[in-house]
C-alpha cells in the first residue's frame, strides 16, 4: 500500500493528459509559427489551450502567456512589471510567507535598486489588509500575494486586499502566485481584480515543464528573457506544445467536477485531521481550521522529533510527505512560513505537510493514519526530548 501525500510539491500526470501529449508529440508535432498544415494545427491547438486555461480563471485567451512553470511565470510577472514601470516608482509589496519563487525574485529586485516590503502575517498566516494600506505609497508599482499558502494552506483574502490597493492607486499592479491555490479554491481574475496570476501544470496532474501567466490586457510589462520569438515575445523559445496541450487537458479534468473535487478533498482533510488528533498526542496544527484553509492541505508538528526522520520513516511504508519548508530543504533553516507565523524552531523542525488532490484516495489517508502513530511513537522513544516539556 502506498500513499502519495505530497501533491503540493508535484503530482503524477493523468493518463488522459499523457494521451493528449502523445498526440502532439507523434502526430500534430509541427512548429506553430509555420504556415503549412502541421504548423497551423499546432497554432490552432495552442489557441484552444489558451481558451481552456483562460476560462478556468475568468480571463481572456489573449491574456494567457505560456511558461515553463510557475517559477518562470512569477519571475516574468515580478521583474517584467518592475522593469517596465521603474519610471513610475520602485516600491513593491509582498509578504513574508510567499513561495521562494516570489521571494528570490524580490531579493533580486532589491539588489537592483527596488525597495520591497515583506508584510508580516498573523499566527494562522493571514495578512492584515490594514498592513497593506500602511505600506502603500505613490511609488508602489506592484503588490504580490499568493492566494493560498503552499505550506500551511491559508486562503488569503485577496479580493479585499486588491480593493485597498486599487482604491489607493488604480495603476498599482496586483500579482497573485496561484500555484498552490489553482484547482483548490475558486479563482476569477475579474472578480478578484488582479492583473497578473501564475499557475503551474504539474500541481494539477498536468505535465512538469508547463505553466502560465495571466497578464491583464493593458498591463505594462516587458520581457525578462530574450531570443527566438515564436508566439510570444514575453516568453521566447519554441513553445512546449505537448506540455501546453497536456496542461489544458489537466485543467479540463480538474475543473469538470470542481465542486465534487472540493467536497472530496474536504472529506479527506477532515478524516486526516481527525485521525491525527485522535491518535497522536502532542501535535500542533499549523495554519487555520475550516473554510479558510485550502481543502488540499494538512500540516502538523509532532513535538519532540525531527521532520526529516519522520519523512524517511513514512517513506519506508510507501508514504510520501513534505517537511518543514517543502521548497527549501536545502537551507536547513526552519521553514520561513512557520517562522513567520511564530512557530518556535524546535516545533517547526517536526512539521509534516500532507497535501492531496481530487484524485487522492481515501485509502491512502487511512494507510497514513495507520502508519503515522507508530512512526511518531518510535521516533519519540529514541529522542532525548520529551514532547510534553516542549
Amino acid at each position, binding site marked *: 500500500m502506498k500513499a502519495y501525500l505530497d501533491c503540493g510539491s508535484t503530482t503524477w500526470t493523468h493518463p488522459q493528459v499523457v494521451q493528449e501529449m502523445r498526440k502532439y508529440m507523434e502526430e500534430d508535432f509541427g512548429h506553430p*509559427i509555420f504556415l503549412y498544415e502541421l504548423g497551423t494545427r499546432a*497554432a490552432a491547438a495552442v489557441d484552444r489551450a489558451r481558451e481552456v486555461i483562460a476560462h478556468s480563471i475568468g480571463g481572456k485567451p489573449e491574456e494567457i502567456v505560456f511558461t515553463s512553470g510557475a517559477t518562470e511565470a512569477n519571475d516574468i510577472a515580478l521583474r517584467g512589471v518592475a522593469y517596465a514601470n521603474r519610471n513610475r516608482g520602485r516600491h513593491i509589496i509582498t509578504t513574508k510567507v510567499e513561495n521562494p519563487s516570489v521571494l528570490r525574485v524580490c531579493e533580486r529586485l532589491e539588489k537592483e535598486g527596488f525597495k520591497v516590503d515583506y508584510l508580516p502575517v498573523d499566527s494562522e498566516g493571514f495578512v492584515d489588509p490594514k498592513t497593506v494600506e500602511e505600506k502603500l505609497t505613490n511609488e508602489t508599482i506592484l503588490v504580490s500575494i499568493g492566494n493560498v499558502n503552499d505550506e500551511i494552506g491559508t486562503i488569503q483574502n485577496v479580493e479585499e486586499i486588491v480593493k485597498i490597493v486599487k482604491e489607493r492607486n488604480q495603476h498599482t499592479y496586483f500579482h497573485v502566485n496561484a500555484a498552490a491555490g489553482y484547482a483548490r479554491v475558486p479563482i476569477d481574475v475579474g472578480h478578484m481584480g488582479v492583473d497578473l496570476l501564475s499557475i503551474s501544470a504539474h500541481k494539477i496532474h498536468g505535465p512538469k515543464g508547463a505553466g502560465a501567466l495571466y497578464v491583464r*490586457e493593458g498591463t505594462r*510589462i516587458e520581457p525578462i528573457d530574450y531570443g527566438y520569438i515564436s*508566439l510570444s515575445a514575453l516568453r521566447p523559445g519554441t513553445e512546449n506544445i505537448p506540455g501546453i496541450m497536456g496542461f489544458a487537458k489537466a485543467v479540463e479534468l480538474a475543473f469538470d467536477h470542481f465542486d465534487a473535487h472540493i467536497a472530496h478533498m474536504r472529506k479527506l482533510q477532515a478524516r486526516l485531521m481527525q485521525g491525527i488528533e485522535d491518535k497522536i498526542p502532542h501535535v500542533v496544527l499549523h495554519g487555520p481550521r475550516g473554510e479558510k484553509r485550502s481543502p488540499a492541505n494538512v500540516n502538523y508538528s509532532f513535538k519532540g522529533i525531527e521532520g526529516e526522520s519522520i519523512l524517511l520513516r513514512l517513506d519506508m511504508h510507501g508514504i510520501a510527505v513534505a517537511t518543514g519548508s517543502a521548497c527549501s530543504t536545502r537551507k536547513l533553516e526552519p521553514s520561513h512560513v512557520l517562522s513567520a507565523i511564530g512557530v518556535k524552531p524546535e516545533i517547526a523542525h517536526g512539521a509534516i505537510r500532507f497535501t492531496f488532490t481530487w484524485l487522492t484516495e481515501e485509502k491512502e489517508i487511512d494507510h497514513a493514519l495507520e502508519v503515522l502513530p507508530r512512526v511518531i511513537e518510535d521516533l519519540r522513544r529514541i529522542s532525548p526530548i520529551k514532547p510534553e516539556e516542549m
Partner: protein
Amino acid sequence: MPAEYTERSLLRYTEKVLELFRNPKNMGEMKDPTVVAVEGDPQCGDMFKMFLRIENNKIVDAKFLSFGCAANIATGSMTTELIKGKSVEEAEKLTIKQITDALGGLPALKMHCAVLAYKTLKKALQEYRAKSGGASA
C-alpha cells in the same frame, strides 16, 4: 498586455484566403488587354501585374500575374472577381476594406500585399482614363 507580445494572429490566413490561394481566380496572362499595369518590386518581395479588358466602360475581363505570397495571390483573385462585370466608375469606388472584408480579413503583417493588388488596379484604371481621355467621376 501590449499587442506586440501576442503575435499569434499576425501571420495566420483565413480559410477564404487559403481557398483563393489554392484555387486562384483570373490568374494568368491576357491577350490584347485594354490596359496593363504593374506595381511592386521583386526586391521588396512582391510584384503584381494586372490586365483589364474594358468594353463600353465596363470591365468585361480581368486577369493578373503575381510574384508574391499567398496574401498577394488571394487578394489578386478577390480584386479581379469584385470588378469583373462592373463599370469603370464602380471599380474606381472599390475600397481596400471591401477587398479584405471579402477575404474574411488579412493578417496585420500581410496588409501591404493586399494594398499592392489594390494599387495596381488603381493604376490600371488611371491608365485607362488617360488613354480613353475620360476623367474619373
